[in-house]
């Protein structure tokens, strides 16, 4: 927005560098370390681990983290509230419920991705509509209302999911439970290719809406008086974020708090202009989730921790700190 913002440009460049470095280094890390030289030489076992097992997973983490952080940013600006993100709002739970329903009634395999994804989209959209209906007021949203609405949606979804698990046989139940923890243990590029258009499309739409999102920072009344059609803006942002989250949850299950931590830290680094903030969330969110996943793969090697557990362990305290810090007036 301003004439010559140097700092956000440099910050964005650095974050892109971090993103690239993560893309190259993360596939080397794991229960069995692989060296870049071996991969370059085409040493069979190293190359196979790098190209077939770890790279698709890293790419998935980069896309998934981007989806979480960018949609967290979208929710936070739209609701004018820093605690809004897919997980705290119950959007992830809604998507998860949709996906679990689909898993349950097609026999629990992840093969029918389109059906699971459709159900997951539907769940995410239903949760978003509920939240909007419950919490949206004229000038932003009260933190307490938003939290309660999110908790209510999450609890209801969890209850139904538990019920479905109770009804399922033990293999199905095990799959569902593992999946609900949020993990990125995929093999192959199919999921990556499938997620790519949703994440790129959603992030591009939010970037295209940067003026409107910036205007929302000055209040809804002000934004409307400058010519923003609030109803259509809300619809676009909620649709973009729900599709991104729905697509991700269908593959990786609900992964919490990335959308909370990343945008919050980036505002301090990059500033509040969505022209820089949205791409920054894309790169940093991806790098963050990839690093978390690399840690999840190595901390208890050869066992793998679902990355959702790790992000929740990091995110829970952060979330509490954010609540207390907000209450004490910064």
């Amino acid at each position, binding site marked *: 927005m301003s004439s010559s913002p140097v700092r956000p440009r440099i910050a964005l460049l650095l974050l892109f560098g971090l993103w690239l470095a993560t893309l190259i280094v993360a596939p080397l890390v794991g229960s069995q370390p692989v060296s870049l030289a071996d991969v370059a030489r085409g040493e069979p076992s190293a190359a196979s681990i790098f190209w077939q097992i770890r790279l698709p997973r890293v790419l998935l983490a980069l896309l998934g983290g981007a989806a979480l952080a960018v949609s967290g940013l979208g929710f936070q600006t739209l609701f004018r509230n820093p605690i809004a993100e897919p997980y705290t709002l119950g959007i992830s739970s809604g998507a998860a419920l949709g996906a679990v329903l689909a898993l349950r009634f097609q026999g629990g395999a992840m093969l029918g991705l389109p059906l699971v994804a459709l159900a997951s989209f539907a769940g995410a959209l239903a949760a978003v509509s509920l939240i909007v209906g419950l919490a949206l007021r004229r*000038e932003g949203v009260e933190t307490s209302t938003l939290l309660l609405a999110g908790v209510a949606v999450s609890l209801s979804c969890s209850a139904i999911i538990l019920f479905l698990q109770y009804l399922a046989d033990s293999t199905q139940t095990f799959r569902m439970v593992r999946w609900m923890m949020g993990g990125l243990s995929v093999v192959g590029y199919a999921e990556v290719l499938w997620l790519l258009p949703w994440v790129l499309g959603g992030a591009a739409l939010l970037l295209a809406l940067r*003026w409107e999102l910036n205007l929302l*920072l000055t209040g809804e*009344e*002000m934004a*409307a*008086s400058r010519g923003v059609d609030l109803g259509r803006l809300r619809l676009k942002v909620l649709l973009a974020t729900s599709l991104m989250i729905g697509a991700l949850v269908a593959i990786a299950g609900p992964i919490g708090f990335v959308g909370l931590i990343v945008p919050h830290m980036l*505002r301090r680094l990059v*500033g509040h202009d969505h022209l820089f903030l949205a791409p920054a969330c894309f790169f940093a969110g991806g790098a963050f989730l990839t690093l978390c996943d690399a840690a999840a793969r190595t901390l208890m090697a050869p066992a793998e921790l679902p990355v959702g557990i790790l992000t929740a362990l990091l995110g829970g305290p952060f979330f509490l700190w954010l609540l207390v810090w907000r209450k004490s007036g910064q």
Partner: protein
Amino acid sequence: MTTLLSARNLEWRAGGRTILGPLNLDVLQGECLAVVGPNGAGKTTLLRCLTGLLRPSRGELLFAGRSFATLSRRELARRIAYVPQIRPERVPLKVEEVVMLGRYPHLSPLQIAPRSSDFAAVEEALAVVGIAPLRARPIDELSGGERQAVYIAAALAQESEVLVLDEPTIHLDARHQHDLASLLLRLKQSAERTIVLATHDLNLSSLLGDRLLALAAGRALALGRPAEIVRSEVLEQLFQARFEVVRGGERPVTVLDLGA
């Protein structure tokens, strides 16, 4: 003078109650119309209708003869700029960023960066309001008066013919009230802006307004020159409080009459 903005049988209802109207009003090109009245008279509701932020329950609003219904939000914003009274507590932007956002209705959706005309409009708005030295400051660090000036600059950068202000001088000290009033006077005289403002400050409205609209319970009690409205009979009926006119003439000045 030609009519720029008009309301025909305007009515706004909420929860089964009529908050505003029925009301007929013509805002003339280049005039300053001040809306006065007690709390809850519907001043803000009227302003929000006139800016197109509220859709009337009944009646019609026209800009230069064109119905609001045929204008998009952006088209309306190019014609009418609004400075609301209630704003978010925290706005994490710098002064020039807030002013640049006033250019929004002039940006095309495909445009990647602001054009030179946008920067020029921002510069001019900063200069007219006299806040160019503050341009790089975060708006949250400014005083109430400075902040009000920033939002007025943003509305000026919007380059609309009509400027609508809700309680522009509330919470401002005497000096900032003076600065703001003389700014509005300058805008009206040199830039030929049409100004509509709502205020609790009767003397400000008398000094600035070409016409005053006395609004009570959503209806127009009286509409006329300051000398016609700022009279103890009218004010008493309007506010249910006694006033003493301490200076007469075309732009009378009053104080509350406490009977002491």
